[in-house]
């Protein structure tokens, strides 16, 4: 089995705006993961200019430990994290939203969900480990160190949220240190972890369905079942996006053009939505037939 993996590349001038899957450097992240028993010290200047420290009061501690077991060595502590909030959310938080019709403009700021990228021990980065991470519910997603310095394991199990004020946004955006080489692949893995949907879960289900129905212990996925479930995942996202986008166009249109835009978008949806729903239905039908065929072959034998 070959395993396709996401890696990160250095963002250059042509990189798209910060979005889902981007790797952000968070200098404080490692310290938050140190230990539940750690105590933060605040640097202070003592009399005479001497540098010193004092224990932080409870209210001064930004966050509690995110939960890495304290027996792990610092080599495994993360200092970067991947944005796993969806693209719309990232847009709202980092770029705000212009005024839409009666709705006022929203300033940037809000909360983003992040998954830490922790460095991995060598034995965690073997192909076997990759497979386990892919197929298991380990909540970790390996990122090979593919000639770029940010390899390791994306640790979905320890996802956390950062709260950004409007003034924090420029600093956060400038902390991007990697863009995923395959954003869609990362999305599929995150989707499998977060909502148990998408091609990865579909393939697991299709393999297991085939095994149960045919009695063959190992074999490829039931192709049509896999296709139907995957298409359902892709379709339910794309269809909602298309409807939402159409509504947005209507809202953004000026008072005078609104009726015209509304008619235009309605016409578009009237043509497109049935096509999409029928494609899903056809895939579902093919999947159903495949299952029935498999069941029939078992009955005959």
């Amino acid at each position, binding site marked *: 089995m070959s395993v396709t993996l996401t890696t990160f590349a250095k963002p250059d001038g042509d990189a798209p705006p910060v979005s889902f899957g981007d790797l952000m450097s968070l200098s404080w992240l490692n*310290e938050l993961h140190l230990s539940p028993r750690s105590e933060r010290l605040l640097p202070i200047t003592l*009399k005479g200019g001497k540098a010193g420290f004092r224990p932080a009061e409870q209210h001064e501690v930004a966050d509690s430990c995110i939960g890495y077991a304290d027996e792990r060595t*610092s080599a495994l502590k993360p200092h970067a994290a991947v944005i796993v909030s969806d693209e719309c959310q990232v847009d709202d938080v980092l770029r705000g939203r212009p005024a839409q019709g009666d709705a006022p403009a929203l300033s940037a700021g809000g909360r983003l969900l992040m998954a830490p990228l922790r460095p991995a021990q060598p034995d965690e980065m073997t192909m076997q480990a990759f497979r*386990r991470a892919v*197929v298991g519910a380990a909540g970790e997603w390996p990122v090979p160190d593919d000639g770029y310095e940010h390899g390791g394991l994306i640790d979905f199990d320890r996802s956390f949220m950062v709260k950004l004020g409007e003034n924090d946004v420029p600093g956060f955006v400038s902390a991007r240190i990697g863009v995923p080489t395959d954003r869609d692949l990362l999305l599929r893995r995150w989707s499998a972890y977060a909502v148990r949907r998408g091609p990865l879960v579909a393939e697991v289900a299709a393999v297991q369905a085939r095994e149960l129905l045919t009695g063959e212990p190992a074999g490829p996925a039931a192709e049509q079942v896999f296709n139907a479930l995957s298409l359902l995942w892709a379709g339910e996202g794309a269809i909602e996006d298309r409807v939402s986008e159409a509504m947005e166009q209507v809202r953004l249109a000026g008072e005078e053009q609104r009726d015209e835009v509304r008619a235009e978008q309605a016409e578009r949806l009237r043509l*497109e939505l049935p096509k999409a729903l029928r494609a899903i239905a056809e895939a579902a039908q093919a999947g159903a037939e495949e299952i029935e065929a498999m069941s029939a072959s078992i009955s005959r034998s």
Partner: protein
Amino acid sequence: MRGLLTRNELLPTVGSDRTMRDWQKKELIAKPKAIDGFGKRLRLYPEIALLQVALVGRRADTDRLRRTVTKRVEGLYGCDAFRECSAALDQHLKSLPVADLQHVFRVLIEHVPDAADALERDVDAVEKKLTEECDLFLQTRLGRVCAEADGLTHVRIGDEVARFDVRHVAGRPQVGDSVRCRSFSTGGLSDRFVLPVAFPAFRDGWRQQASVEVAEAVEAVTHGGELPEMEYVFLYADPDSAPAWAQAATRQLRDAPGQEQWKSWLAGQLADYADRHPSLRVKDEQRAASAVADEVVVGDRWASWQAPDLFA
């Protein structure tokens, strides 16, 4: 820890025994507090005596400043903390192999830690008063002796290397030693001195020890640079894991100058930490042994699958 100098430390800054006696006779510098016992004699000066050395030979308008400093130094001799420290040194003088700061502080911290802290605070208070009364600027920066050449001691302070002649180096630190560089300036007068650093890493109490070790880490990592802006520093809440300070400190200091040098230092620290915690290794081994390969039930179809254009 600061506040005291032994005669051995102060002597190079003055020049010779004869000069020192002469200056003391003229009351240009304070007389030491002498402690005798077991055939040894320890002569202690408050650190501020360096300022008096700096003022010797200056213009007449420093007379008032000199008188003020002398008054403050003598005031320190009379303070409770100094008396208590002197008594402790008197009692334990025999245990001092050499009358230098490291050993003096070891005695003080082991036997009268509160008095040692109080003395440091008293010296700080005196310096603050001098700043207020005489418009005297006092600054301390950490450094590291990086070379001795041409009769000069080269001290790296942050990114710069400062050169001090023998007169300005107290206690003759060796190459590699941590030092404090003290600056005195008032009006048109200024002078700088190099002093040895004595970290009381043996201080009782893990919490204090960890604090000191963080300070040492900062010093070691930055090679004597000024303390950089540290966003977060954590102190472990139990003595066993106190060494983990290095991990936090060095992570935060990864952008500090001299990265290459401190990387190997950090590797050593982490190796030591692992050695001191054999349970970590056992757990790692257990985890590796229990890592039974899961049954692979999935291919990579999920990764290569392309959704058709549903709207076409």
